[in-house]
C-alpha cells in the first residue's frame, strides 16, 4: 500500500493559488523528491501532508490515514523537519532530543539505534545549546529529533538549504541509510543536483506538478540535443545566443550556457556565428541533459528561453 497518497490537492491564499490539483503516490521505502524553485508550493504541500494545514480541495492520506479525519494518528507516525530550524534554541542538544522523545511518549534509549549514526557526530556537543550549533549540526540534530519516535514516513522540507556542500553530501548519505532501513522519505529541495539522488521526483512550479518520474527517465525523455557553450566573453554570450534565430533555448548554467536548437542546425554553424560576433576560446560540446535542463524546458514555454 502507498505510504503517501494525494488526489487533487488544492490550496489558495486569497487570490493566489499555492497548490493546484496535486496528485501523487509514494511507495514504501521510496525517497520521493519534490523539486522546484522558492515559492512553488513545496512547503504548503508538506504542511498539508503533515496535518498542519487543511487543503481547500482534494484528499490525501499518509500511512493509509486521512490527513483531516485521522490527523492525530498520523502525527504519531510521521516525522517532520521544517525548513526553518525550529528546535528549542535555549535547550541543549541532549535536552532537545529527550524532550521530543518524551512528547511522543517514548524514550531516547528505546529508539537510539535509529539515530545512533547521526547522533554519534553530535555527541561531543551534547551539552551545548542548540542555538550555538553550526548550520550542518543543527540539521543533524533536527533530523535526530524528527526520527526519535520511529516514524514510518519522514517529511524533510528543504533540509539542505543553507548548508555547506560537504554537510549536504553527508546528509544525503544519511537519507540513503534511512531508506535502507525501510523508511519512506519525502524531501523537497531547490537544488536540482540533489534530484538525481531521489528514487522519483516531482517537478513543481507555481503550485502545479509538471512531471512525476524517476530522475533517469526524466533526463532520458529530454527531447532535444543539448550543448554546453562557453567563451571568453560569457557576459555577452547569453545575449548573442538568444539573438541567434536557430537557437531554441539558452540558459546560463554556472560556467557555461546550455543551448538547444529549435530548428536543425549544427554546432559548427553556431561556432561560426559566435566567432563572427567576436567571441574567442569558444567551446561547444554536446552534453547529457541534467534534471535542471528538463525543469527549464518543462517550466517555460519554448519562447521564454529566447526572450528572458
Amino acid at each position, binding site marked *: 500500500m502507498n505510504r503517501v497518497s494525494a488526489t487533487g490537492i488544492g490550496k489558495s491564499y486569497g487570490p493566489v493559488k499555492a497548490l493546484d490539483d496535486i496528485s501523487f503516490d509514494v511507495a514504501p521505502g521510496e525517497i520521493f523528491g519534490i523539486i522546484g524553485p522558492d515559492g512553488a508550493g513545496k512547503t504548503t504541500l508538506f504542511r498539508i501532508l503533515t496535518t*498542519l494545514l487543511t487543503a481547500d480541495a482534494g484528499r490525501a492520506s499518509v500511512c493509509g490515514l486521512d490527513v483531516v479525519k485521522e490527523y492525530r494518528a498520523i502525527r504519531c507516525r510521521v516525522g*517532520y523537519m521544517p525548513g526553518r530550524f*525550529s528546535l*528549542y534554541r535555549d*535547550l541543549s542538544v541532549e535536552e532537545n532530543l529527550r524532550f521530543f522523545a518524551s512528547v511522543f511518549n517514548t524514550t531516547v534509549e528505546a529508539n537510539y539505534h535509529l539515530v545512533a549514526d547521526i547522533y554519534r557526530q553530535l555527541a561531543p556537543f551534547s551539552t551545548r545549546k542548540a542555538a550555538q550549533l553550526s548550520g550542518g549540526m543543527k540539521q543533524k540534530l533536527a533530523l535526530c529529533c524528527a526520527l526519535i519516535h520511529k516514524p514510518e514516513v519522514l517529511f524533510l522540507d528543504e533540509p539542505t538549504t543553507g548548508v555547506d556542500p560537504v554537510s549536504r553530501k553527508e546528509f544525503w548519505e544519511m537519507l540513503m541509510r534511512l531508506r535502507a532501513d525501510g523508511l519512506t522519505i519525502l524531501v523537497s529541495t531547490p537544488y536540482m543536483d540533489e534530484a538525481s539522488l531521489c528514487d522519483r521526483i516531482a517537478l513543481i512550479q507555481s503550485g502545479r506538478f509538471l512531471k512525476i518520474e524517476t530522475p533517469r527517465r526524466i533526463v532520458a525523455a529530454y527531447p532535444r540535443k543539448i550543448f554546453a557553450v562557453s567563451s571568453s566573453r560569457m557576459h555577452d554570450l547569453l545575449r548573442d545566443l538568444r539573438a541567434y534565430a536557430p537557437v531554441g533555448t539558452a540558459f546560463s548554467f554556472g560556467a557555461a550556457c546550455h543551448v538547444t536548437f529549435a530548428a536543425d542546425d549544427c554546432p559548427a554553424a553556431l561556432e561560426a556565428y559566435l566567432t563572427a560576433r567576436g567571441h574567442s576560446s569558444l567551446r561547444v560540446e554536446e552534453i547529457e541533459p541534467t534534471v535542471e535542463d528538463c525543469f527549464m524546458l518543462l517550466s517555460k514555454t519554448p519562447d521564454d528561453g529566447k526572450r528572458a
Partner: protein
Amino acid sequence: MLKFLIEKEFKQLSRDKVIPRLIVMLTLLVMFVFPWAADQEIKNVKLHVVDRDRSSLSERLVQKVVSSGYFRLSGPSASYDGAMPAVERGDADMIMEIPSGFERDLMRGETGRLLLAANAVNGTKGGLATSYMAAIVADYSADLRAENGLPALSSAFKVESSFRFNPRLDYKVFMLPALMVMLMTLLAGFLPALNIVAEKESGTIEQINVTPVPKTLFVLAKLIPYWIIGFVVLSLCIALAALVYGIYPTGSLLTIYLFTTVYIWLVSGMGLVISNYSDTIQQAMFVMFFFIMVFILMSGLFTPVSSMPQWAQAITAINPLKYFMQVMRQVYLKGSGFMELLPQFFALCSFAVVLSVWAVVSYKKSA
C-alpha cells in the same frame, strides 16, 4: 506528558537571563518603590514669605506654618513682585503675603488679611498646598481667639473628619493592594502570552504541532508555571506588606486567594486571546501596552472611578482590573467578606468565562 512540557518550561525560564530577574525586580519595585512614589501626600512645598508686618504675630504664623511639616521656607522677599521671579525659577511653589497692619488689625479684633498665591502648574500640588494652608491658618486664628478670651468664630457648620478604615490616611495602605493587582496582571496574563508568541515567532510551535501533544495541553503547560509564579509572588507581597509596612488584610486571606484564582484565570484568558491574534512579539507587546495603559488609568488605581465623568465610568465597567482592585482594597482595608464582594465575584467570573471561550475559539481559528 504534561509533566515533561512543564519541566521544559521551567528549564527554559531558568535559563532566561532577563525574565526571572525582571520578575524579582518588578516585585521589589512594586513593594518598595511604588508605594512611596505613588504617594499623593504633598510635602516640602517651597514657601516664599513676604512679611510686611514684621510683628510677633506674623512671626508666629510663619512658625506655625513651617512646623506643620508640609512647608519649607525658601526665602523671604520684601514685596510680592520681588517674590514672583522665585516662582518663575521654580524656587518657590507658593507665596504668602502678610500685609502691614496684620497684628494691629487682629489685636483690634478686626479681620486679619492674608494673601496666598500658589503655582498651579501642577494642579494637584497647588490645590492641596492651598487647602493645607487654609487649615493651618484657621487653626492659628482659633488659637489666637482662645488666648485672648474671644469666643470661637461661629460658623454654620463644623466639619469633623474621620477617615474610616484608614485612620492615618496612609496612602501605602491604599496603594499596596492595588499594586499587587497590577503585578498579577503582568505575571499571569502577559508573560505567558508573550511566551506563546515567542514559540510562534521562532517556529518551534510548528515542531510541537506535528507531535501528538494536544494543543490544550501545550497551552496549559505554558500557563501553569506562571500561575505558580503568580501565587508565590502574591504570597511574598502579602508577607512583605505585613513585615515591612505592618499592613495586614483586615479580611480573610482565603477571600484574597479565591479572587486571585479567578483573576489569574481571567488574565490568562486575556493573554491567550492576544497571543492568538499576534504573530510576532512586537505585535503582542504593542497590544498589551495599549490595554495596560487603558486598564490602569481607568481602574481607579490613582484616581477614584467615581470622580470620572459618566461616560468614562461606563467604560470602566468592562475593566476587570477595576473589580479586582476594589476587591483587594476592600478586603485589605474594610475587611469585606465574600458575600459583600459577590457583585465583583460575578463580574470577574463572567469576564473569565467570556475571555476563555474567546481564547478557545480564536485559537481554533488560528490553528
